């Protein structure tokens, strides 16, 4: 099956600022694909190019086989899109807005409609100006998920949602995947990305740093141990056995294994270790490696 999205050397400049600097990416059809990166990495710009809000300055992009930006209307007719921070028309009532937003799609997912609207529990007869921020996000999310389309692009879908709605949303995304739909989402919550996504791409300063499956990411991630010591260990001595202190939470040291894990564990026997835990690598660990952030993630 051809990829749902194909991107080659994609570039976008806003004046002197480069938002995307030659990104190459394929997003397989029928997967939930995550885009991760710090603010300003280019995630939203990439998503907006795919729906024709923004025109690229270089490179090529295709979604569902259609060229962008020339055939962006064909893409939008087959895509449900959730913007990151767009406002809604506040004079409209919720039901009116839903009808307005879904007008133009050839079909709606009726089987999902009732479940989604019940889970979101929106006051559809009330004007949107009376909605809270979370309600507005839920309404916009409904507009993106209800069309019966092969591609859903969601920019920060869990932002502003309470925990029960987040759980319901993740269930919906799993169901969409089981039906063969492609979901492309950007998210800052790495735990959620790890829970729901099949594949993740890391962006920074407009460049693609890495793209792999969740398992592939775990295998690339440096391994960590969480240890407490009876006396403060010498860093040089730890380095000689292939260990480095990557972070600290109180008395717990996060040790990064830089060499052979077996040799490192044998070497630790010579240290005054009070407790030791193996730390299952997570998306947050790779994020910390890629972006140089200090992290001390909890054990799985």
């Amino acid at each position, binding site marked *: 099956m051809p990829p749902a999205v194909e991107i080659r050397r994609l570039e976008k400049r*806003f004046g002197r600022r480069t938002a995307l600097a030659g990104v190459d990416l394929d997003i397989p059809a029928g997967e939930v694909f995550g885009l991760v990166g710090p603010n300003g990495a280019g995630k939203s710009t990439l998503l*907006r190019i795919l*729906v*024709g*809000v*923004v*025109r690229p300055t270089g490179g090529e992009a295709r979604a569902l086989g259609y060229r962008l930006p020339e055939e962006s*209307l064909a893409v*939008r*007719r087959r895509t449900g*899109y959730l*913007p990151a*921070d*767009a*406002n*809604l*028309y506040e004079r409209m009532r919720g039901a009116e807005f839903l009808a307005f*937003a879904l*007008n*133009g*799609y050839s079909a709606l997912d009726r089987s999902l409609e009732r479940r989604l609207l019940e889970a979101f529990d929106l006051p559809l007869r009330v004007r949107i100006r009376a909605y809270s921020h979370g309600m507005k996000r839920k309404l*916009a999310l409904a507009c993106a998920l209800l069309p019966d389309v092969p591609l859903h692009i969601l920019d920060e879908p869990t932002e502003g949602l309470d925990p029960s709605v987040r759980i319901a949303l993740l269930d919906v995304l799993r169901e969409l995947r089981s039906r063969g739909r492609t979901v492309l989402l950007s998210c800052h919550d790495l735990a959620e990305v790890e829970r729901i996504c099949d594949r993740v791409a890391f962006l920074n300063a407009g460049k693609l740093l890495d793209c792999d499956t969740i398992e592939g990411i775990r295998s690339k991630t440096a391994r960590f141990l969480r240890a407490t010591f009876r006396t403060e260990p010498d860093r040089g001595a730890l380095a000689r056995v292939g260990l480095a202190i990557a972070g600290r939470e109180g008395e717990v040291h996060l040790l990064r294994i830089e060499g052979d894990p077996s040799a490192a564990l044998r070497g630790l026997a010579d240290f005054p270790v009070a407790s030791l835990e193996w730390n299952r690598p997570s998306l947050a660990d790779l994020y910390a490696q890629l972006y140089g952030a200090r992290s001390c993630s909890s054990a799985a």
Partner: protein
Amino acid sequence: MPLWAKIAPLQAVRELLETIEDAGFSAYLVAQQFFKAANSLGTAAAALFATGAVAREVENRTIEFLLTRPWSRRRILASKFVAGALALVVPIVASSASAALLVRVIPDIGESVPVGPILLASAHCSLFLVAIYAATFLGSTLSSDANRMAFVVLGVSTLSFALYMVNEVTHYSFYRYSDVPTYLRILREGRLPVGLDVALVGVIGALYLAADRIFARRDF
């Protein structure tokens, strides 16, 4: 004649009153209906409707949601243009027709005003206002600040109106295409100023096509 007397609108106001005195109720209707009401309030309405088309959507951050619907940008822009134009034109035509009909009901006026020429006059007024609307509409597709757009358009219109009221510089004003003598001619002759109206249609078309092209290619 001192400068203050030359630039004061006294002469224009005097001529207007003399025209009303000479031409009777028709001139009064023209002055009230078209020259005072439609030109001033109509220009303000044209600016208000047009700035909301794109600039206010950008300002309110609703534009991204709109552009990601399964509709073409051309369709979005055309819908907005037509809706705003109708909002301008329908009240002018409706009030003109009702004014002409009310004349027959109110006995004290003692004159009759034919409905046909009144409707022609309202058609010319509509074209004039839609041209102002189209110019503001084009500005709206370029801008992200609706209030600034509105102030610019209203400022230009007010300046043009002030120029119109001073005889020495009245030829610099675009209100000479929508003034009392123009409408009185339409009422008396029972026909539109064809050359002028064709030009107005051409201006409206050109402005709209420019707006369409800009909107199609603009990043939001």
